[in-house]
């Protein structure tokens, strides 16, 4: 916004509003058009859907593909795999639903032009592992974005959605959203019949290992600012498993992926003395989790646990033995292209330190915690399951609808659906879109209405950080230190330090307990109060301010959930020092939370886990 221009309010009407243009959002936009030929389908994205989201740099593998056409896997096998990896706690109805559809999404990707690696003899996709297939996916995102652009009525880029709007006529029903244009500063009011939240999960809520420029090298995209959680939480949607944060073992500093290395190149880990160490921690792990240690494959968190224990015992660094595999030129190419198509930064780290895996075994490390819903983890909104088989307790009308009417979710937004990755998130977007179109059809003429009072109030709220800066700036000569406002980066650094020290970050070796969590909540509360005084110098800083706001709300949820679950379910992700063991008697359940905005209270409860009978 410049001189002489006044901030305009723009209204966008739609039938289906997709918030977030990543994999899930693009899937939802595409599918919504198939079912809603005459509907107004709008996708709104804070960046540019061409490269937005976690798949910006591309992917080298699709990690969720059944291969039903070749009898490679069946959906229930995938459910058991995800259940196993998450120590028993996944929404098996939702997971089966994604697994039965995901193959169709992948086949469409191939049809649209995604280069798949194929076995020249069998013609099948080359498998990296049981669930993963290998692709040349540098342009994975541009390809799915093209399909979404063709399907949408309109795609709005560079508009950050900050809040959802509720129906003024009917309680607990969504009616749209508000946000601002990051380029022009215009205020946007989106009015919709159904809303699909497909935004990003939470990176940058814990202090990362590198704190200078290196802060940017997070494992999960730095622009995943927890909007997937904050938007539903604000309007009282129930969330689940927010304590189930993920810690990843990856290559040092660059956080480059290890999947292709383990599965395709058949590399393995060893400690600083060249010894195999994972099996030496078997008894220790059994003490904590009982028979879960005997599951195959070994759950991700337990592998982390052995890694961490080995480091604490002083036998680090842990290295990936690559020298053998890299002697094979094909494997060497795969090893490097794996990064170039997915995490270019790892290639840069190795080039900068003269690490050639043919001659050196590179170091591994564990990351800081992230909270998201599509990987070996499943935090997110509590959603209704598939109409054809979901148990009554998991079903209240429309697939992937949250506990707020008309509010759907997909991708990292939805909880309980681990191991869906990119293809599963895209598929979940499709599932949510079909359900949203059915919801709209059933609604008939009874469309929701936004409240003018609500959005006028939100307009002031959204731009307040800019006013804080402009006015507060008069107090000081110059510089970043003001007694009356905080810059967004300053708020972010405080948030990351609080979570790191009190809610199980790297400096605490992922350990926490009720005392620490209680103190953490106190400090988060003070940060919440300070959010009234964030100062944004320009529209870019305003975006950062709202990203911080969303991250803080998600962090509060994570902390409450972590306090509520009185056990250590996932050692290697985090530990409750006051409840170190896994407890299937009391805690073989989901945690659910609901935030009440008026009172500021959090309400937590348990929900049952249903398993596919074997």
């Amino acid at each position, binding site marked *: 916004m410049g001189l002489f221009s006044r901030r305009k309010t723009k209204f966008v009407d739609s039938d289906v509003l997709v918030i977030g243009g990543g994999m899930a959002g693009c899937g939802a936009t*595409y599918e919504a*058009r*198939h*079912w809603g*030929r005459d509907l107004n389908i709008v996708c709104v994205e804070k960046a*540019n859907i*061409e*490269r937005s989201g976690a798949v*910006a*740099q591309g992917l080298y593998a699709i990690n969720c593909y059944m291969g*039903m*056409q070749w009898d490679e896997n*069946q*959906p*229930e096998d995938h459910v058991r795999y995800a259940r196993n990896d998450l120590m*028993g706690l996944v929404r098996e*109805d939702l997971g*089966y639903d994604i697994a*039965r559809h995901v193959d*169709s999404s992948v*086949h469409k990707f191939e049809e*649209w*032009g995604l280069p798949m690696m194929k076995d020249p003899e069998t013609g099948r996709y080359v498998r990296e592992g049981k669930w993963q297939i290998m692709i040349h996916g540098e342009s994975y995102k541009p390809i799915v974005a*093209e399909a979404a652009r063709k*399907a949408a009525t309109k795609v709005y880029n560079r508009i950050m959605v900050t809040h959802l709007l509720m129906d003024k006529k009917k309680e607990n029903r969504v009616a749209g959203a508000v946000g601002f244009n*990051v380029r022009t500063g215009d205020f946007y009011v989106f009015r919709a019949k159904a809303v699909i939240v497909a935004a990003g999960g939470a990176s940058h809520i814990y202090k990362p290992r590198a*704190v200078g*420029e*290196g*802060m*940017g*090298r*997070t494992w999960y*995209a*730095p*622009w995943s600012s927890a909007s997937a959680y904050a938007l539903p939480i604000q309007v009282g949607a129930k969330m689940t498993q927010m304590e189930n944060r993920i810690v990843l073992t990856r290559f040092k*500093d660059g956080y480059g992926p290890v999947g292709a290395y383990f599965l395709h190149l058949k590399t393995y880990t060893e400690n600083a003395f060249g010894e195999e160490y994972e099996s030496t921690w078997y008894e220790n792990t059994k003490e904590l989790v009982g028979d879960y240690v005997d599951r195959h494959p070994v759950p991700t968190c337990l592998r982390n646990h052995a890694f961490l224990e080995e480091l604490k015992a002083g036998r680090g660094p842990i290295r990936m033995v690559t020298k053998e595999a890299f002697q094979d030129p094909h494997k060497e*190419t795969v090893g*490097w*292209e794996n990064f*170039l198509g997915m995490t270019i*930064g790892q290639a*840069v*780290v190795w080039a*900068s*330190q*003269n690490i050639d895996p043919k001659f050196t075994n590179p170091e591994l490390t564990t990351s800081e915690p992230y909270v998201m819903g599509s990987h070996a983890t499943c935090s997110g909104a509590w959603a209704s399951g598939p*109409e*054809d*088989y*979901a*148990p009554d307790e998991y079903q209240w009308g429309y697939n992937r609808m949250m506990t707020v009417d008309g509010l759907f979710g997909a991708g990292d937004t939805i909880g309980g659906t681990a191991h869906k990755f990119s293809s599963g998130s895209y598929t979940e977007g499709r*599932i949510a879109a*079909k359900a949203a*179109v059915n919801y709209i059809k059933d609604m008939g003429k009874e469309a929701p209405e936004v409240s003018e009072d609500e959005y006028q109030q939100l307009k002031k709220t959204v731009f307040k950080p800019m006013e804080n800066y402009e006015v507060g700036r008069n107090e000081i000569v110059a510089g970043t230190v003001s007694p009356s406002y905080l810059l967004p980066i300053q708020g972010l650094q405080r948030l990351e330090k609080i979570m790191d020290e009190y809610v199980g970050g790297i400096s605490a070796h992922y350990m926490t307990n009720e005392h620490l969590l209680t103190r953490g909540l106190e400090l988060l509360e003070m940060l919440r109060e300070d959010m009234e005084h964030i100062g944004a110098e320009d529209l*870019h800083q305003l975006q950062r301010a709202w990203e911080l706001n969303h991250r803080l709300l998600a962090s509060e949820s994570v902390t409450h959930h972590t306090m509520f679950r009185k056990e250590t379910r996932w050692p290697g992700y985090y530990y409750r020092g006051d409840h170190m063991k896994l407890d299937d008697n009391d805690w073989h359940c989901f945690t659910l939370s609901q935030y009440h905005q008026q009172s500021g209270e959090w309400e937590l409860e348990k929900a049952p*886990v*249903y*398993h596919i009978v*074997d």
Partner: protein
Amino acid sequence: MPTFVYMTRCDGCGHCVDICPSDIMHIDKTYRRAVNIEPNMCWECYSCVKACPQNAIDARGYADFAPLGHSVRVLREEEKGTISWKIKFRNGHEKNFESPIRTTKWGTIPSPADLPPPSEEDFKSQELAHEPDVLNIDGGLPALTRDQLKKGVV
């Protein structure tokens, strides 16, 4: 490694500003050329590097842990459907890679609206667009029954 822009190559076209997922590529006020305004929010996704028509953007590994003297540069050729990489180690060692990025022409993905619409029954079924055909299996879309899901510990 965060990105930087070469003075002699950038002509201030704004492609990088349009594409950056982090909103950190902006236009410098003195030269009207591109600049990375927030390297600590740069993921090294190389979207800007690939989007620059002048190859004016490059990356230098994060100073926190990447010594100087390396280079990882890329040429993305949409018309050829290829991406080429040149990696130069600090010690001068070099590696080159080339991969496909697309097997079909850009812009040719059909809208779902161009294909036959679903029937009323289709809306009530569990099938998504193009299913069951595109699953390429016999027997239709797999499903569970309600009694296959039980509460308890497994």
